[in-house]
């Protein structure tokens, strides 16, 4: 794997016949693990978006006679206790889980990076205020906050809205990245190339945009993928506790929740939504690793 990867990278750089974007793409394609992850993640997204066309049944159609049927040719992933098609519900559930995962990841990373960069770069009272705020946010036990928050927004959640969940999970997810980024910025700020930019007369905005942020890309991409995974898990946890998106809207989390009473007799009801979560989280992490390497110019060998 490593041989094929460096070969392709070498071809890409030897004569430089390709644009830089093309080069990055080729590096990503050469990373087999990243590729598998990317293909699967894209497939999951596509099936979430096209669920109404792909799904063989109506996600809420009851068919009591075939309840708890187990996987069959008619119902690939079996049916639940009310006879609803499990495969259909998995496709629709992906909409909520992936939607929340991606939205929370982007929002929390955006907040975390902004807080971390401002605190680390500006220092002084800005840093004190932002970092104390981060510490306070970290002191709140996330699960308790989520449970209370979800209770308080119960009426909106039962209306089928998912934005309250995105909001709540974002609130408990941005602090770690803020701290990590601040630490990195503190180190970067003292590097000589930052001094050189200042000596050339660069303004703060330019230094942040050209010297600080590009050197944080690796950490940001990795965090982004971890955050997707973390948000999907948190959403599942909440739904599992009956506090997330309310039934009948399917999510992977509340499917697990309703499956738990049948875990001994009908284990496939737990298997499929569980696998969906595990595979998604794993693939998103693979994509993150691949992206980080593809975006690093030092990985492009001469």
């Amino acid at each position, binding site marked *: 794997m490593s041989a094929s990867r460096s070969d392709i990278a070498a071809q890409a750089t030897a004569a*430089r016949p390709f644009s*830089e974007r093309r080069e990055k793409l080729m590096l990503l394609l050469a990373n087999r693990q990243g590729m598998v992850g990317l293909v699967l993640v894209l497939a999951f997204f596509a099936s979430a978006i096209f669920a109404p066309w792909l799904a063989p049944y109506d996600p809420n159609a009851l068919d009591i006679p075939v309840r708890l049927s187990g996987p069959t040719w008619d119902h690939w992933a079996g049916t639940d206790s009310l006879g609803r098609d499990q495969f259909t519900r998995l496709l629709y559930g992906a909409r909520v889980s992936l939607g929340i995962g991606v939205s929370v990841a982007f929002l929390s990373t955006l907040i975390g990076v902004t807080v971390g960069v401002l605190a680390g770069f500006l220092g002084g009272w800005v840093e004190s205020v932002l970092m104390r705020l981060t510490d306070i946010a970290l002191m709140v036990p996330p699960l308790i906050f989520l449970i209370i928050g979800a209770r308080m927004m119960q009426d909106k959640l039962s209306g089928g809205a998912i934005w309250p969940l995105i909001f709540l999970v974002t609130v408990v997810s941005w602090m770690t990245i803020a701290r990590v980024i601040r630490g990195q910025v503190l180190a970067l700020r003292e590097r*000589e190339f930052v*001094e*050189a930019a200042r*000596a*050339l007369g660069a303004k703060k905005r330019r230094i942040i945009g050209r010297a600080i942020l590009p*050197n944080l890309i690796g950490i940001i991409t990795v965090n982004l993928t971890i955050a997707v995974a973390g948000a999907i898990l948190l959403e599942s946890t909440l739904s599992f506790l009956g506090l997330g998106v309310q039934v009948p809207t399917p999510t992977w989390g509340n499917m697990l929740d309703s499956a738990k009473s049948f875990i001994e007799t009908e284990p496939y009801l737990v298997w499929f939504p569980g696998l969906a979560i595990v595979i998604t989280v794993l693939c998103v992490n693979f994509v993150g690793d691949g992206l980080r390497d593809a975006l690093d*110019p*030092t990985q492009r060998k001469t």
Partner: protein
Amino acid sequence: MSEPLLIVRDLVKHFPQYEQRILTKRQTGSVRAVDGVNLDVMAGETVGLVGESGCGKSTTARLILRLIEATSGSVIFDGVDVLNADDEALRRLRRQMQIVFQDPYASLNPRLSVREIVGEGLRIWGETADFDKRVGDLLDRVGLNRRFLDRYPHEFSGGQRQRLGIARALAVRPKLLVLDEPVSALDVSVQAQVLNLLVDLRDEFDLTMIFIAHDLSVVRQICDRVAVMYLGRIVELGDRDGIYTRSTHPYTQALMSAVPVPDPVHERERERIPLEGDPPSPLNPPSGCRFHPRCFKAETICRTEDPPLIERVGGHECACHFPEVSNVT
């Protein structure tokens, strides 16, 4: 004689040291990195700043460019007060004073291509017409292939990176170029190439240079005048030949006697002045003359009275109570 391009007066930088208690911070003292430096640099000349590690050479350079804030003192560049300039004025001043750093690995942004690193100054100052051509010309000038525009720093050797650092500094056409040990991280053969390049560029771009080094033979090749620093102060200042052949400060003499001579007979026979111990801590510099604990000539007055940097025998400025011309090489 015309006004100096750069006038440095009583420049001081103390780094406070704190002791962290549970709730409070208490200042326990300060590192006197630079403790009263005076220096005039004429337009077109190259002044060498030499001394041991930790004597405040690099700090002095950063203070002059105001990359760090001074504790007190003044820096006047081309008639403008650098240390009291507001943000905009300081930005404009910075075009005219550039720095080349010691570490060619840390001083180039690993995420930017050569085009963006060398062209950064042009972008900052909005001079983006014929951008690629101008950056290419700069690469030519420092002896790099202009086809390297799309390469990244990690693809270059130390010497090539240092050339990139020089090109980046020259892009904004500075009057003053501060070189902070520009060759000490390089192989000896590469050192010579970079030094030759600097000499060529000095003539071509009419540069005034402050050249920081701890290698005296490097300084001798390139400088018109030399300032020897010890523990945050300049202890001897004079033209190159004066410093190298008729030094009067015992510290300078000790440094000179440590420079190896390529003639083995002479090398064996010449007198060495040993320097004992390490430089004292700048946290708590010695009383009187700061060099007295290591000086072979020290007497009572050296322990109590700090000798000023004034013109003495030998025709150059020296901060010693007992200056004597000695030809140690």
